[in-house]
């Protein structure tokens, strides 16, 4: 894969089409990861995004990439979610009742315009980001067809949940499958026997402010050492997210303060005082807050990528994450933190990290792992080019990168 001679010339960059629902202003991990992949590919290719949208009027106009909206007709996301939740008890995708599989297909809708958009783009490679691909993927052909562009699928599978049935169809038509967390590979290997070599880690590179430790955030100095609790606002998530809050943690932490990121509200408290931090809730400030913490505690509903755990480990901070999540898969692979199934285990994990020397050891291990796998953006760009385009290009000089198609 890395020794192909066909490095593209400057005159004509290859065109990569990304077909996805995960794009635009949705603040979910999969959308951020898809954009990261698109950005990396844009260094060596012209990237066009075919965005699957329920409402064509809601298409996100991007300043970097050209967006080709493809309307999804007849989708019913609410019923789809309900049925998917019901199907979570199934051990694997193939065991679903036919009635449920049929309903899942129907509620997913149809996006027949995708083929037309792909014809217009005439891509040299296709990336299918996300499992939700409600169009006839078989029109792409099968692996080995010489006339078709190589196809990479990045499914963004949730860890700990059964693999959705739709993935089987995508894997059949993909040349390679990219995984964003270690448990994803294990889940996919069983579905594609004999294709283990085609399932490759994407290892997203996460950009963090490495100098954040030198520059503490205003307002936290008076509170001494703290752990960082990350929630989501409004608190309508699963039970644990609502139950654990900054007020209840100081009691078990013996003098340690608790900083809390609750959407755009950031606060810090100890036994007696609570202060809302007078800062702009930006990525840079978030890194500054993380970098000074003794540990990060993530009580949000698990996402498909585990970005926060990677960020925390990159900054040398051990992470406490929910069991059965992508974040846990990263933390377990890195030995860079601990995980919990309930409130009691969460408290136990935090105590171990802040009261014993184990926290420092895990932090060091996590940093080493994260820097190797997720810390080198140039390497990520080259790896993505190899994964999608089939060659590992030399780093282009500044100013010669591709841009949106």
């Amino acid at each position, binding site marked *: 894969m890395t020794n192909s001679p066909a490095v593209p010339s400057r005159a004509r960059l290859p065109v990569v089409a990304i077909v996805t629902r995960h794009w635009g202003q949705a603040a979910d991990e999969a959308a951020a990861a898809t954009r990261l992949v698109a950005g990396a590919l844009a260094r060596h290719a012209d990237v066009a995004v075919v965005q699957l949208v329920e409402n064509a009027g809601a298409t996100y106009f991007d300043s970097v990439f050209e967006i080709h909206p493809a309307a999804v007709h007849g989708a019913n996301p609410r*019923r789809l979610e309900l049925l998917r939740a*019901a199907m979570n008890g199934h051990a694997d995708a193939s065991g679903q009742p036919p009635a449920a599989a049929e*309903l899942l297909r129907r509620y997913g809708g149809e996006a027949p315009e995708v083929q037309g958009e792909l014809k217009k783009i005439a891509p040299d490679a296709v990336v299918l980001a996300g499992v939700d691909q409600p169009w006839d993927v078989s029109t792409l052909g099968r692996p080995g067809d010489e006339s078709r562009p190589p196809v990479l699928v990045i499914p963004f599978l949730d860890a700990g949940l059964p693999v959705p049935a739709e993935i089987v169809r995508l894997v059949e038509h993909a040349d390679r499958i990219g995984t964003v967390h270690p448990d994803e590979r294990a889940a996919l290997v069983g579905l594609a026997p004999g294709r283990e070599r085609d399932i490759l880690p994407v290892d997203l590179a996460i950009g963090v402010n490495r100098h954040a430790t030198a520059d503490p955030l205003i307002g936290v100095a008076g509170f001494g050492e703290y752990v960082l609790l990350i929630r989501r606002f409004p608190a309508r998530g699963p039970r644990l997210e609502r139950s654990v809050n900054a007020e209840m943690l100081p009691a078990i932490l013996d003098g340690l303060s608790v900083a809390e990121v609750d959407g755009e509200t950031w606060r810090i408290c100890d036994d007696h005082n609570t202060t809302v931090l007078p800062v702009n809730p930006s990525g840079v400030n978030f890194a500054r807050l993380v970098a000074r913490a003794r540990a990060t505690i993530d009580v949000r509903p698990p996402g498909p990528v585990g970005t926060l755990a990677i960020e925390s480990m990159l900054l040398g901070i051990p992470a406490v994450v929910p069991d059965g999540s992508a974040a846990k898969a990263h933390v*377990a692979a890195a*030995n860079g*933190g601990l995980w919990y199934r*309930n*409130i009691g285990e969460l408290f136990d994990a935090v105590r171990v990290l802040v009261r014993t020397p*184990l926290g420092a050891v895990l932090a060091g*291990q996590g940093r080493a792992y994260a820097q190797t796998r997720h810390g080198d953006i140039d390497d990520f760009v080259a790896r993505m080019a190899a994964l999608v385009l089939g060659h590992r290009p030399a780093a282009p000089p500044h100013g010669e990168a591709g841009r949106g198609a």
Partner: protein
Amino acid sequence: MDALSENDALDAATIVEQLRSLVSEGRREYPRSWMPRASYEDLVVHDGREPIHLHESIYYLHRHWNMADSRSCKKIGWGPQAIVQRLLSRIINGAMSHYFAEEQMFRSHLARSIDAIAYRVDNLNYADQRALLGAVREDLIELACHVDNLSYADQRALLGAVREDLIELARHVEHRLDTREIDR
């Protein structure tokens, strides 16, 4: 934990398993199984309904039950109209003072009664809701304990039954929606 800290390379899974084994040996400081949300009280207090004792008509009653000031004549001056009005006021108040005193007493008792009833209704309302939510909470904890104690096979069977019910429900909803579309 101390033994683990002496090692240079640590396996996080081992630490998690050790912590879990400590719990299984009896150390249970915090809840380890499913618990319903603790803020039922908030649901009652912040349920969006204004308490009856804060209703604006009761507020008005509080402000206006005492009408003693309205009976005294406010007209001042030495014009013929002011003199006549003051005279009439004295005559009427003098003749009907007993009635007005009774009326005043009646209004004050009426306001107090309505106020007391409003508070009582509000308290009854909250107490009933609290009792109901408390009962639901106990039921949910009992159900969670029951599910926790089930064997893995039984849990899967239960989940399967719930799943079938949900599929049935989805079909039922879809049928209802389709029928409604046709009706339109």
